[in-house]
């Protein structure tokens, strides 16, 4: 910590406290032996974890969430990577406009997007809610796919691809041996961000839910409204553990700074 800047240091500590302490409360209460969501926990037990992993609606919703997040991430990258290349390397007229379009889901309120998709696709075209959710989540992920992969491309020397061509590589070969390897950290971080954002999304998933398909956060929200027991805290702890695991793996393999931002290379 930088002791020569006490104000900044204090603010940083306050930031960590505000972000982390409430989460610690949830984790602590999930290990309670009692039957209410209360701090301090009454006794220590794993009974709520046992309940959580045997609670069918949660299991079903967890699988749904993972499926949706994985598919939306893949789709967003498949659309986003070519868009990034076109924006950064192509001779696209109105590049700024195109980039703005791909980034706009960050600004448009999700409820508006959700409502529009609900009206037009679910009611209008009678698409099933999984398809509509997949479309909605993909659209929400696009800014990450375009921005984060774009950041690693923008920082790369624009002449490396020309260098590869000059050495004898066809455009396709250049893409696979130079462009894609340069994009790899960006793609990895975009995938991670997209996946987490989709997995945690509430507004879209709430609007576009159905009895057959609903995501974990929506199911948990539903559950909390009816019963106030520590099973939700246990579920949250499980999700938190999974996220931390992903973060640790990411840090070990490519490094956090590189993943988030995809730029500090």
């Amino acid at each position: 910590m930088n002791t020569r800047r006490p104000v900044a240091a204090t603010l940083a500590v306050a930031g960590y406290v505000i972000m982390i302490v409430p989460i610690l409360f949830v984790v602590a209460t999930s290990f309670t032996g009692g039957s209410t969501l209360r701090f301090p926990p009454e006794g220590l037990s794993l009974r709520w974890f046992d309940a959580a992993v045997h609670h069918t609606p949660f299991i079903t919703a967890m699988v749904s969430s993972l499926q949706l997040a994985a598919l939306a991430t893949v789709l967003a990258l498949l659309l986003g990577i070519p868009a990034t290349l076109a924006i950064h390397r192509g001779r696209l007229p109105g590049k700024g406009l195109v980039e703005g379009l791909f980034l706009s889901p960050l600004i448009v309120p999700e409820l508006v997007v959700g409502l529009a998709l609900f009206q037009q696709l679910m009611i209008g075209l009678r698409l099933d809610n999984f398809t509509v959710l997949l479309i909605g989540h993909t659209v929400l992920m696009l800014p990450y796919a375009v921005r984060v992969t774009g950041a690693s491309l923008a920082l790369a020397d624009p002449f490396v691809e020309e260098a590869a061509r000059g050495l004898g590589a066809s455009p396709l070969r250049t893409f696979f041996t130079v462009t894609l390897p340069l994009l790899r950290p960006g793609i990895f971080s975009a995938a991670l961000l997209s996946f987490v954002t989709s997995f945690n999304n509430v507004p879209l998933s709430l609007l576009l839910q159905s009895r057959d398909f609903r995501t974990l956060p929506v199911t948990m929200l539903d559950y909390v409204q009816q019963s106030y027991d520590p099973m939700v805290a246990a579920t949250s702890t499980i999700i938190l553990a999974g996220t931390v695991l992903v973060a640790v793996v990411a840090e070990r393999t490519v490094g956090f700074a590189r993943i988030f931002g995809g730029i500090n290379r």
Partner: protein
Amino acid sequence: MTVAAQFQQVTQRFGDFTAVDAIDLTIPAGKLTTLLGPSGCGKTTSLRMLAGYSTPTSGRILIDGVDSTRTPPERRGLGMVFQSYALFPHLTVAENVGYGLKLRKMPAAERTRVVAETLDLVGLGHLAGSRPKKLSGGQQQRVALARAIAIRPKLLLLDEPLSNLDARLRVHMRAELRRIQAETGLTVVLVTHDQDEALELSDQMVVMREGRILQQGAPIDVFPAPANRLVAEFLGYENFVTSADGTLRTVRPEHLQVLGQERRADGLTLEGVVVDVAFRGVDRLVTVDADDSLGRTVRLTADVRDGAVTARPGDRVVLGADQAHVVTLAG
């Protein structure tokens, strides 16, 4: 003279801007040609057209006698060194150098040998396993050079290869480039804005400005006889004097002297008032307001040990240059 490449009436326009204006240029094989000029003169555009990264608006480019105007870069077999070096950051030094060889399906054992030889040629054999970002600027530049040389290119193209190096290293690398060119016998085209670099390195120098070639030839022929004022200015001539009959003459600052009472110069004489004397280590730079009809400022350098130069601002002086040092310009 064997011809390695030729520009025939090559023009490149970007919208309304004419970057290169109908140039004709012959690149002799086995020689080092420099394209010299200020930024925006069309030298880099010409190099990029030669490499195949941009297609001329009109005209033809021949490589080894074959019309290659529209041949994509990967089928030209040329080696290019970019100003930014453009090394592949995800590959090691050896993999960078071997990239072009791998594409040519050279067997692994032979490839390893050629990569090692080429790295030795540029003096980087010990860094084969390093990543480019761990290297200094000068080392990266050598890797870029080795990568381009390894494929035994028909032409080696260098875009301002030394401009990102510090002054001392730049001068050292000039000698290195000459050695490498001599050892490999490659045809080299080098783009630069540095006239000293061009003079020192070139077999043939091509002075460009505003998309046109102003003058070309061996440095030893071009330097003492610039074709016109623009070339002269670019080669460091100053002190342009128009005579009564309209001829334009020029003298470099180091060839203009402050004359004592007893001497007259046989080439050119001027009178004027000293406005500034600046000490520069090896010499003094004297700025004089000449009272010829054009009222121009002339500058001369005088050796610091030259006791005769005692001029101070405000003094009236007579300046002169010997005929051998006065260059008469066509326009």
